[in-house]
């Protein structure tokens, strides 16, 4: 025991002067640093918001035109036009062959020159004749008289009509406007059609559908496998060297450059298992390999953050391990798992490199009908279009980016919705 008197052990300190100049300066400094920190934080938030807004506005400005299409009314007088078809022939058994053999391209060129003078045939989209043919096939009786077709304009006219064309095209547009035959309307073909060599006819639906199918395969594989793997690793696996090795491998897998997954998929899925090239099935498998580690890592963190007391509580009333996991741990971890899943899926949605290697960069005119059909995906379509020389593809590219962003935002919104539904507080 210490026998010294208490007063010897404590030297009486001089009382603190809270109002001294030094103290005041210290307080001012503290407030200043607080303000500085707040300001820096705010600047960072504003800067990133501004970047995002800038990006969106530029894309919207460039791409909005891609959703509309300039059309020119073209009257065709079938009595004089060189087409050599009549309604009876088309309705007869050899109608298909007759339509296939007829020169609709020549017909459109002829009618354009007749109506608007020499050179006017170049004002129409290279694929305009397909619309004429489709309408004749549907209603052969128009071959008996005159008819007017609203045909898509060639891309230089289209661009000029939207205010950004060359002098020649501008003059043509002015001429057409004087005649009152030029119009601009919503281009529904863009949202329902597949890719085409003619920008006036090219649509995003093929790539969009390819992306949706690919994402469906990715989600269907990566989510359950990722969740089960993280549950097993967190709740069941013994803590030993093997689980350490697995943990390191998964972390590394998440960091592997995506193109390597493409090479792996090419070697395994296509060359070894003989799965169809360019298909959403193989694309989805490839992206699932990439996405799974992201889900496992997020899932393990989410499971770790479930308080152990909840496990004790459930075990304490006699729940089995599986019941603890599925009644308590998983529901509480689900919001975190969903956040990880959406990050992984968003990355997969924007991925192009591995898909290049499995052949999803081909020109694909028909939207895929199933998982094994040849397909492409949105970012690949953007890449392909941005590579085109035709000026009409510039705004198509931006329009495709808008579609990609809309898909991304929809996906994120869904995830936030589900997360809020499952979120529980304790």
């Amino acid at each position, binding site marked *: 025991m210490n026998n010294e008197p208490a007063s010897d052990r404590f030297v009486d300190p001089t009382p603190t002067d809270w109002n001294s100049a030094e103290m005041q300066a210290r307080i001012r400094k503290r407030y200043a640093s607080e303000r500085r920190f707040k300001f820096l934080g705010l600047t960072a938030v504003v800067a990133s918001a501004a970047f995002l807004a800038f990006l969106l506005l530029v894309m919207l400005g460039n791409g909005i035109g891609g959703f509309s299409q300039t059309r020119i009314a073209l009257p065709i007088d079938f009595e004089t036009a060189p087409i050599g078809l009549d309604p009876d022939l088309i309705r007869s058994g050899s109608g298909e062959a007759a339509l296939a053999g007829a020169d609709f391209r020549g017909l459109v060129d002829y009618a354009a020159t007749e109506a608007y003078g020499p050179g006017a045939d170049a004002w129409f989209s290279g694929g305009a004749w397909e619309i004429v043919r489709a309408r004749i096939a549907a209603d052969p009786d128009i071959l008996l008289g005159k008819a007017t077709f609203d045909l898509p304009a060639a891309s230089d006219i289209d661009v000029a009509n939207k205010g950004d064309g060359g002098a020649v095209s501008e003059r043509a547009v002015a001429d057409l406007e004087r005649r009152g035959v030029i119009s601009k309307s919503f281009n529904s073909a863009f949202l329902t059609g597949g890719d085409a060599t003619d920008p006036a006819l090219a649509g995003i639906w093929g790539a969009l559908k390819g992306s949706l199918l690919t994402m469906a395969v990715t989600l269907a594989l990566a989510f359950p496998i990722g969740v089960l793997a993280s549950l097993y690793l967190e709740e069941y696996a*013994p*803590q030993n060297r093997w689980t350490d090795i697995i943990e390191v491998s998964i972390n590394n897998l998440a960091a592997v450059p995506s193109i390597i997954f493409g090479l792996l998929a090419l070697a395994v899925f296509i060359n070894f298992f003989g799965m169809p090239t360019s298909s959403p099935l193989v694309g989805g498998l490839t992206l699932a390999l990439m996405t799974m580690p992201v889900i496992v890592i997020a899932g393990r963190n989410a499971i770790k953050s479930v*308080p152990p*007391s*909840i*496990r*004790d*509580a*459930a*075990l*304490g*009333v*006699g*729940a*089995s391990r599986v*019941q603890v996991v599925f*009644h*308590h741990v998983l529901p*509480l971890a689900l919001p975190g798992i969903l956040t990880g899943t959406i990050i992984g899926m968003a990355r997969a949605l924007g991925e192009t490199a591995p898909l290049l290697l499995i052949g999803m960069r081909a020109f694909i005119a028909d939207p895929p009908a199933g998982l094994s059909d040849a397909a492409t995906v949105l970012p690949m379509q953007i890449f392909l279009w941005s590579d085109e020389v035709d000026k009409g593809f510039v705004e198509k590219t931006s329009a495709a980016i808008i579609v990609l962003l809309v898909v991304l935002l929809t996906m994120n919104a869904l995830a936030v919705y589900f997360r809020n539904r499952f979120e*529980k*507080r*304790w």
Partner: protein
Amino acid sequence: MSTDTSDAVSATGSPNAKMTARDVSVFYGDKQAINSVSIDVDRDNVTAFIGPSGCGKSTFLRTLNRMNDTIPSARVEGEIKLDGEDIYASAMDVVQLRARVGMVFQKPNPFPKSIYDNVAYGPKIHGLADNKGEMDTIVERSLKRAGLWEEVKDRLTDSGTALSGGQQQRLCIARAIAVDPEVILMDEPCSALDPIATAKIEELIHELRGRYAIVIVTHNMQQAARVSQRTAFFHLGTLVEYGLTTDIFTNPRETRTKDYITGRYG
């Protein structure tokens, strides 16, 4: 206060024993936390485990319903019986054991679910109710026994986590009661509660006595004196002294016990 009138208790050999432990040792890896403890838990009385922090009270308590099984490094030696049945035998179903020997933890840990679902969870997984009506009865009875019914009967769908700390702990007791256990283990159930909530839990323990065999770990000696009829004093992983609470507190046999209850260390 203790109401027990029997003359004395020996650590072992009581004919009224609900649970018996013989030469129980517990290891965490190489480290021994409990050294050869033998003790009988009485069927009709409240048994208190006291002792300084880290002496192994929780560790020993958790061997009684095999909660230590969930700690990979923990290893239990010796024999523990519930009504003569070896609970560490391979024939013993640990899930059923934990329903028969319920547990209330130090920190109130209601599920982040409704009050009703908290109580109904145990009966549901053990199939104790055939329909909604039976479940309602079980929930109401359990909440009444836990002394919580009057406070929550109008908001059974509210989250259990929205209750106050004391109410949460009584909800946890109701949850343990709902599966109709034979023994209830409580590990410092009041250490996170204020004095009023503590008094309520102590009152509740009095009421539950006789219906369930109760073991309570506490480092609050006044609490041990108030709620228990038997007290076991643990020190450094060994059972130093076990006897009637009145004897332990007024006339301890061991000097270590005396030192502890007079506040010389702890």
